[in-house]
């Protein structure tokens, strides 16, 4: 195999796929990137047996072929090469010679035949989704994914195609984020599945704002085609719990606030929260809300926001990180905060179909 490639192009291509490779691999070949050279250029593929990513890079291929090379080392080398042009040739023993300007490197790879192939999707359901929509939906939910490995069903985003809508849900037991979007797909394709969080990370890295993404679904795998890149992932097996159970009914109070103001106020005030007092208290009074944090031995912070409020005075406390996360992910100017009482979860909503249920923390006086 022999090809010439621009340093930028090679580095870009490799960086697109290298995150899937874990530093502790069970099989040596999983630390390698599969490089396939053909007249169309290079295809680079990596996998950790759960998630696989495949991307392309432009190159001048004088001799096609395939091999696998240790990706981390390769990236480190390419990054440091002095010249913008790189020449790579790989012999029959999978030894790669890399030339760039006066530098010469030789690294030993493993045969492409040993590389585990990504799953095929011959009998799959297909969906076409604008990249911008999916990217946005993931952004609004991915922070709420549970990291508790004992609840593996929650270690991903629940995705459902139903009644002309795409719905994404993520929860960790303390908060739940849900977003809907209208989408066209055949009614025979109604289904739901759970995308593992690692695949979500790769998606967020690769999704753009233009064009469509093709989603292919088989029994236990999902594939996302984004331009010339592909992400293939195992699905999380199991039944996602009934998320609708979490959403409270009618609220007592609905407050409308400026998203940015609430975010920044909370951010500033939470500087005075600590590991011990990790909460931020919102006290609602006549047409204003006081956002407070206080840590014994450290100090306190207090800031007020204007808000249209005519109910009786009451306070509720939230984890500041959990409160800020959805605010950061949204773009709307205004958000609605639906509250019941200080012991009940609050619900953050926007004009769009977005919803965020957040359990309160105990109010300390």
């Amino acid at each position, binding site marked *: 195999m022999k090809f010439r490639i621009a340093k930028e192009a090679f580095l870009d291509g490799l960086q697109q796929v290298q995150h899937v490779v874990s530093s*502790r691999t*069970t099989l*040596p070949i999983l630390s390698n990137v599969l490089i396939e050279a053909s007249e169309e250029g290079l295809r680079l593929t990596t996998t950790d047996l759960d998630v696989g990513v495949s991307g392309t890079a432009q190159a001048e291929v004088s001799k096609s072929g395939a091999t696998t090379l240790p990706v981390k080392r390769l990236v480190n080398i390419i990054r440091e090469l002095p010249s913008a042009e790189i020449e790579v040739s790989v012999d029959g023993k999978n030894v790669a010679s890399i030339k760039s300007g006066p530098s010469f490197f030789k690294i030993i790879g493993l045969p492409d035949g040993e590389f585990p192939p990504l799953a095929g999707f011959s009998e799959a359901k297909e969906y076409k989704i604008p990249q911008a929509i999916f990217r946005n939906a993931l952004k609004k939910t991915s922070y709420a994914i549970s990291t508790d490995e*004992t*609840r593996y*069903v*929650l270690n991903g985003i629940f995705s459902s195609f139903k009644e002309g809508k795409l719905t994404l849900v993520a*929860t*960790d*037991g*303390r908060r739940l984020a849900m977003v809907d979007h209208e989408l066209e797909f055949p009614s025979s394709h109604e289904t739901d599945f759970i995308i593992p969080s690692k695949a979500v990370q790769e998606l967020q890295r690769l999704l753009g704002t233009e064009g469509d993404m093709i989603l292919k679904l088989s029994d236990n795998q999902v594939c996302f085609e984004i331009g010339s890149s592909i992400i293939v992932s195992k699905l999380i097996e199991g*039944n996602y*719990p*009934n*998320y609708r*159970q*979490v959403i*409270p*009914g009618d609220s007592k109070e609905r407050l409308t606030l400026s998203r940015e103001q609430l975010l920044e106020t909370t951010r500033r005030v939470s500087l005075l929260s600590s590991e011990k007092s990790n909460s931020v208290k919102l006290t609602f009074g006549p047409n204003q809300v006081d956002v407070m944090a206080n840590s014994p031995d450290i100090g306190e912070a207090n800031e007020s926001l204007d808000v249209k409020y005519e109910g009786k005075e009451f306070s509720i406390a939230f984890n500041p990180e959990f409160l800020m996360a959805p605010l950061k992910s949204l773009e709307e100017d205004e958000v609605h905060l639906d509250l*019941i*009482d200080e*012991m*009940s979860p609050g619900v953050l909503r926007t004009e769009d179909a977005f919803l965020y249920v957040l*359990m309160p923390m105990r109010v300390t006086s």
Partner: protein
Amino acid sequence: MTKETEGGQENDSENHGDQNNSQTWGLVREKLSEYISGDAFSRWFKNAELVDPEQQDGLVAVQSDMHQIWIETNYMDELRAAFAEGAGIHCSPQIVVKGDVGADLPEAVVGKIPLQQENQKIAVRGARVNNPVKVVTPNLEEKTQAFQRKLKRLGINPDFDFESFVVGDNSQFAHAACSAVAHQEGRSFNPLFIHGRAGLGKTHLMSAVAQQLLANDPKAKIVFLTAEHFANEFIEAVRKGNLDTFRKAYRHVDAMLIDDIQFIAGKERTQDEFFHTFNALLNSQTQVILTCDCPAPEIQTLEPRLISRFESGLTVELQPPGFETRVAILRRKMEQWKVELENNIVVHIANQIKSNVRRLEGALTRVASYSFLSPENMSIEKVDELLGDLVRDENTHLVTIEQIQKAVADYYNLNLSDMSSRRRPASIAFPRQIAMYLARKLTKLSLVDIGDGFGKRDHGTVIHACKKVKSDIETDPEVRGAVEKLNASLERQN
């Protein structure tokens, strides 16, 4: 909370059971509703029920997975307080899901192996539960599929647990030590070195410990493997160049259980690696259990530093079971397999197979199967016929005269030929007598045969030798020591 309620809880007669269940739960619910909002109470606890309160306090069954997740994450403090303040029950509440049969229970059921869902369903409907929850290791039927799968993945036989191990004089100490380790009471029992001949229960006991450790902490990383497997993995790791991964796998664990450690005898590199692994584990106070078919010092070609380490904790021996224990083992198996045999048959089997529990069970299987399949009644003669080859195996393991002579000759630095020669100096004659004494003790040979084996000596000579050695044992500690040593090492050779 009235006195009647408290008294009622202690009354465990059937009639009052359900009534108290709902009374207790009513009080808990009432208290809980004071702690959480009306919306939360109705949303999460409306259809929650108290389960099986006679056996376990605080087991609450809820409607769906989401209920379990949300309650576990958000309302456990309130629930605990509700039990304590509302019904005077101090417990760590646990949430389970009423649901389809076969759904796995959360592994957060602390200290107990999870119940089959079926029991939960029955309890929830208010009827009597037939298989009560056992606090220590429940038996096989009650282990969930998930737990069994986990055991199999680790290479542990689910049948080998504490419940199914019949304890006798031969195994009491070993069993007690293993039990202590399993319940993590024996900080000083590290390493625990279990030795005994084949078929006496070493693997069984070690598996039982593993199962209990996993039941205590489902997230525990238990390594359970044969020394052979360890050696092979090590060789592979060296070959592939990923010793790091190998070391990580075997050093960062919660317990290391290795079977048949004698296998690493003669394997220098493996012993070296094992030495380092062993040290790393002991330094981090990780429990190590080893089994071996002989005591540590008798493992041939084992590095002395390993021998001393193996002996640095607690060493226990599993000996062949005595008659009563053998009968008990047979009876236990018969109960497990729902097999019935006449008492005299059972006793006969116990008399025929003495040295090896595995063989004993094999004998029972044979006799029981035949008895089940055949119309005729089982008889002693039939048993003998069926067990012919097994009984032969029992006996071939007896020592031979030659082995005894060799061992004694070695011990006293004599030639083997001296054992049968006519030479009379005490330095030769006395060992010869010891050898005859041992031959009488350890073989089933007649006095005449023994005499023949020692250079055609008269059977009277053998009798005299036995008497003399016997009295010397009682009066001379040196002789006693020598004979005991020889006896032990000869028995072990077989």
